[in-house]
């Protein structure tokens, strides 16, 4: 499959466009079928891509047949193909769930959903910094539209904050891009990595400002302190399947930090080596801390889940800041786990909220749920996983990250922070769970039953957690290889720029 690497972008793009066209446009059932078929294809192709990337090496897709660094390339290495697969899986779960009727509460749901997936996949796959910007915008605008899906004051309000902050963020992104192009003269990320080594001192200073601006923008997407403010309200007010899909959006930010600040401004960047590091540490620790406090102070399950997303961002960033292969490998494992589980938790929160009447998902006394066992089971699974308690995937990720910090000086900060955070999350979630499920006034009067598709969606996402533990060996082996690939700069640059020798010296 010569075109495998671009399929994760093209399939949702065509699906999204087709959903607007006649045989599908006004008939919801057809839209659902098309979307589900499409997402199934996406999963299959993403899996194939992953296997190909792992077995045959990095897949490079040269768009328009214009060789890098001139044209745009897609780079499907282990890391990006893994994230693409993760995205499609998350999408599949959310989509199944939405087909239970959540897609009815506004127009264009499936189309927007596809476009958002396209944007996310594109951001993961592209090897071009401006193309990354474009895909960021695709995923953002789709997320804006999806956020208001279903309507309501809270969504509107959250959207105002979310959109405006991101618009400022996009402006900063472009400033950063301008600076980097103005100093490096190229847009291909691998080529940037080469050019950055040849900057003279004053150019390097300028490029540094650009690189740091990008860090800020990625940090905004990743919801890092002090750029995380938009997240709790946004995620908590989005409709459930949308929030689930959003769970991967912060990861796009983290991924971009890995891609840009490890490859371009990494160890070998000469004057600009590791420029992000002094900023990453406080941001990472602060994010983890503020997320933990947020979880503790959350009044509703959805807000709590949103804060859990922040915690996962902080944890991931800690791993990013460690800048070792081990840490990256650990981060990748943790990333997969936390994305799927927080995604599932948003869905579970929605079901709980529906069955609790007026109390919704607030932590107050309420009437009993109609299906407490089913929901309780799902909740416990998700909770254990996200707290990081064995035997589910959370503990593996967390322990891997702690181990990665083992021989560093930062251990005295990282370990206590992670452990105390875990404890506080444990306390908060146990309080939440006991209140939601047991602090009830009466037996349920609710007729609201969970739809089989909703169960299917949640199951798909939650099943990943035990599977990640059971197959922890191969999975961590894969993440280790992916991390190795990411950190091995010469390899990645060679893969991207086979003719890079012709470019050496920077005289294009």
């Amino acid at each position, binding site marked *: 499959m010569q075109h495998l690497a671009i399929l994760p972008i093209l399939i949702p793009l065509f699906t999204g466009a087709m959903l607007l*066209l006649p045989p599908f446009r006004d008939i919801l059932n057809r839209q659902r079928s098309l979307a589900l078929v499409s997402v199934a294809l996406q999963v299959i192709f993403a899996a194939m891509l992953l296997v190909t990337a792992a077995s045959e090496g990095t897949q490079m897709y040269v768009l328009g047949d214009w060789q890098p660094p001139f044209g745009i390339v897609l780079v499907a290495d282990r890391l990006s193909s893994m994230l693409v697969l993760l995205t499609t899986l998350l999408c599949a779960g959310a989509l199944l769930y939405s087909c239970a009727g959540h897609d009815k509460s506004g127009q264009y749901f499936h189309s927007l959903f596809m476009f958002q997936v396209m944007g996310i996949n594109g951001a993961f796959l592209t090897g071009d910094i401006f193309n990354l910007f474009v895909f960021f915008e695709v995923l953002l605008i789709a997320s804006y539209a999806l956020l208001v899906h279903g309507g309501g004051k809270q969504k509107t309000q959250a959207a105002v904050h979310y959109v405006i902050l991101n618009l400022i963020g996009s402006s900063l992104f472009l400033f950063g891009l301008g600076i980097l192009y103005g100093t490096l003269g190229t847009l291909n990320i691998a080529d940037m990595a080469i050019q950055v080594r040849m900057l003279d001192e004053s150019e390097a200073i300028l490029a540094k400002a650009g690189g740091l601006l990008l860090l800020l923008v990625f940090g905004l997407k990743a919801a890092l302190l002090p750029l995380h403010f938009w997240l709790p309200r946004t995620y908590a007010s989005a409709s459930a399947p949308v929030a689930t899909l959003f769970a991967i959006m912060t990861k796009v930010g983290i991924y971009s930090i890995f891609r840009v600040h490890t490859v371009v401004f990494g160890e070998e960047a000469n004057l600009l080596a590791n420029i992000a590091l002094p900023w990453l540490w406080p941001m990472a620790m602060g994010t983890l801390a503020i997320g933990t*406090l947020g979880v503790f*102070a959350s009044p509703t399950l959805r807000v709590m889940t949103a804060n859990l997303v922040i915690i996962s961002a902080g944890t991931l960033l800690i791993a990013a800041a460690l800048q070792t292969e081990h840490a990256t490998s650990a981060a990748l494992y943790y990333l997969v786990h936390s994305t799927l589980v927080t995604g599932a938790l948003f869905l579970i929160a929605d079901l709980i909220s529906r069955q609790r009447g007026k109390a919704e998902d607030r932590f107050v006394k309420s009437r009993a749920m109609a299906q407490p066992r089913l929901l309780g089971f799902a909740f416990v699974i998700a909770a254990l996983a996200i707290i990081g308690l064995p035997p589910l995937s959370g503990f593996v990720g967390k322990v891997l990250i702690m181990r990665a910090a083992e021989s560093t000086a930062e251990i005295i900060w990282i370990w206590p922070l992670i452990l105390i955070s875990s404890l506080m999350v444990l306390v908060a979630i146990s309080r939440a769970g006991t209140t939601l499920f047991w602090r009830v006034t009466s037996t349920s009067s609710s007729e609201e039953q969970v739809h089989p598709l909703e169960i299917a969606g949640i199951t798909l996402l939650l099943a990943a957690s035990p599977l990640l533990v059971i197959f922890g060996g191969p999975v961590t082996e894969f993440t280790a290889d992916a991390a190795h690939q990411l950190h091995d700069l010469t390899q990645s640059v060679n893969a991207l720029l086979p003719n890079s020798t012709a470019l050496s010296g920077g005289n294009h």
Partner: protein
Amino acid sequence: MNDLIWIPLLPLLGTLVPLFASRFSRSACAFLTAGFPALALVLVLQLAPQVFDGETVRQSFGWIPQLGLELAFRLDGLALLFTLLILGIGLLVVLYARYYLSENDSMGKFYAYLILFMFAMLGVVMSDNLIQLWMFWELTSISSFLLISFWGHKTEARKGARIALTITGAGGLALLAGVLLIGNVVGSYSLHDVLASGDLIREHTVYPVILILVLLGAFTKSAQFPFHFWPPHAMAAPTPVSAYLHSATMVKAGIFLMARMYPVLSGTELWFLIVSMTGLATLLLGAYVALFKHDLKGLLAYSTVSHLGLITLLLGMGTDMAAVAALFHIINHATFKASLFMAAGIIDHESGSRDMRQLNGLWKYMPYTATLAMVAAAAMAGVPLLNGFLSKEMFFAETLHQDSLGSLSWMVPVFATLGTVFSVAYSLRFIHDVFFNGEPVNLPKTPHEPPRYMRVPVEILVALCLLVGIMPTYMIGDLLYAASAATLQGQVPEYSLSIWHGFNFPLLMSVVALAGGAVVYINRKELFQFQAQFPENDPKLVFEAVIQLIHRQISRVMELAENGSLQRYSYMMLSLAMVMMAEPLLDLNATAGHRPQIPVDAISITGAVLLAIGALATVIWNRQRMVALVALSVVGLIVSLMFAKFSAPDLALTQLAVEVVTVILLMLALFFLPQTTPKESSPKRVARDLGIAAIIGGVIGTISYALMTRPLDSISTFFLENSKTGGGGTNVVNVILVDFRGFDTLGEITVLGIAALGIFKLIARMRLYMPASDGDGRPWSQDSHPLMLSVVSQSLLPLALLVSAYIFLRGHNMPGGGFIAGLITSVAIIQQYIAHGVDWIKARMKLDYQLMIGSGITIAALTGLGSWAFGRPFLTSWFDHFHLPLVGEFELASAMLFDLGVFLTVVGATMLILANLGKLTTSERPVLKEHD
């Protein structure tokens, strides 16, 4: 290969059994549930002889090497001891629970949790890998949480469970850190390697940290002071759970851990100090408090705490003999405490109360149960011929032998005796206050003997107490030896399990304890009065209050930090941006580079002044919104002139078109918004915002200047060289857009299309207030479509479309292209809307904008896909020159088709937005009364 893994695995499979079996009768359910653990027990017994021979049975499978986690099990003496307790007592509890649980309780769920817990405990004691041990350790916390909160509708149960989970969870996390540190020091998590690395660890600088972390795990689990308060609250659980958790399993896990790590961590001053002092404190405190509990289970719970303290104290002493004594007491405590809990459960079950102030004289009602309970209580008190006596003797002996406290060493045996005095006293109270002491008071039920088989577990356990007490060597000699060998990982000291060691100090201490206990109990009234002076501070309330306090404080902090103010969030982001950009610039010595600069001319100055005044006017007049829009238009105009001036005609065109459409959009929105902005920013905030805006502006300007004055080598030469030959167009910018970087453009039109869809969603069901008059209170003009405007706009439409076609067709070679053409078309149509209104247009023109967007994106994407047919990557362009007679030479390029997609999307998106916005209102206006 052996079947070691099946020992924990069988109970794991067994957790599913009750879930299915619960549909059968209760007995069947219990029977089936017991099956798998029983099978496991058989396996254990099968392997026991090997273990008694000093062999360590091990089995391991690779799992997650990155984590250091493998699936590794071991069965040595220590593990065997615990495995037997866990499975044996577990089975008895299963039987007992069959009768204990009421019809309302979900038996299946209960058994499932119980067996799950059993599995977790087995995992802990059989782990041959520290990470795995920790994994099961945490699993015990979780499954015990489920058990304790089994009656979750009761506040007590929820709180008790949460406290237990919090305390043990915290300890678990500390343990994790400790385990990881050990792994780091040893280089392996395999218990085999770790147990062999005692010296390495003890001499390592992080040893104190490791020790404290591991002990935190152990102490929390085993309810050592100051974590001693959770087991009593876990009493909200059904009694079978208490019997299981607080005799043989949960709390013993901590003890187990200390025993397991004994060869690695013990033998240092620090170990002795921490462990033994904690044990001693716990022993005393538990025993003392137990005396005052009126709740039967409360008494037993504190008694458990006290006994755990005793075992801890023994382990802390660090002598081999003490360790043996500890192991011995583990066995003994498990048996008598399990039976006591079960007896307490029976009493509760049959009388409806656990309050010793109500329970009196039960001897008359349930003599058989009373007998059993009294025997077990006697064992707890350390009465000779019962197992408790033996281990307590050993304990006393060891307290006498230790001398680590120097001249204060005498205090240990004294306090140990004192603790035992209380122990005897509460045991006495248990016997006397419940079974004698007059008549029952207000019991809900008339007590009677329980069902036959509910007593069986108690009978078995009490029998064990007796048998061990009478013939210890025969009963547990091998087991104790094997366990000691495994714990010590070396020579087992000489010890004697005989009942009689002659008249010696330990015996004296026992006698003192028994007598003292009796005295204390007899004088209990005074003691109760003394105790009553102290305000009772329920640790549970304290705990809850602390959690609530933390919660409140954090909520307050979070509300201050995340106060929902966008202005603050934006400010923070921009401040960070400012710092990040400015910080590197501090090192920049010369702002200007060496690239020759363009001289300034009058036109540029005019442009700059216009732009500056326009921008400043926009800011200064921002509260009069319409005026600000006019000023904004000036800025937009000058920006496009700047693009034109600096050789970017395409940009100038685009900027112009976009600017006009934007201003129109802004006006459309402004109609529904207040016409002015109230003055609400404080001067301080204005100054602050001005400051940050000025700095960022300055920094951006500086960077821009620095960039522009430096030469640049860029990849653009390639585009200039290949535009004509490779892309078939002379307008390089357009060729980049539709060919070199067509993928960006595809994304860009997708963005536009999505925006339109999103806006459509926003407009749907929007309820807007339509102002009846303008901002100054004037009624609207009645002339909705001025004549001249309508007529002229109409005749401009074909012209505009022609221009649009012109711009579109020439785009590849000259400034222009699909996007600008699309905007021109859109503007022309908007002009028709403005001139004629939505209804008029709608009645005449049925353009399906959604279709346009969809097909636009599809066409562009399909064009890209076309190259697949030729085996080339997506978006590979194609172009050729043709010659037709008369027409002459012309060019066809796939890029034009792509551009058509762009065109359609732009028109579709822009119009979908504007036309739908238009639908929000009608041309019917409320007429205000005219003054005449």
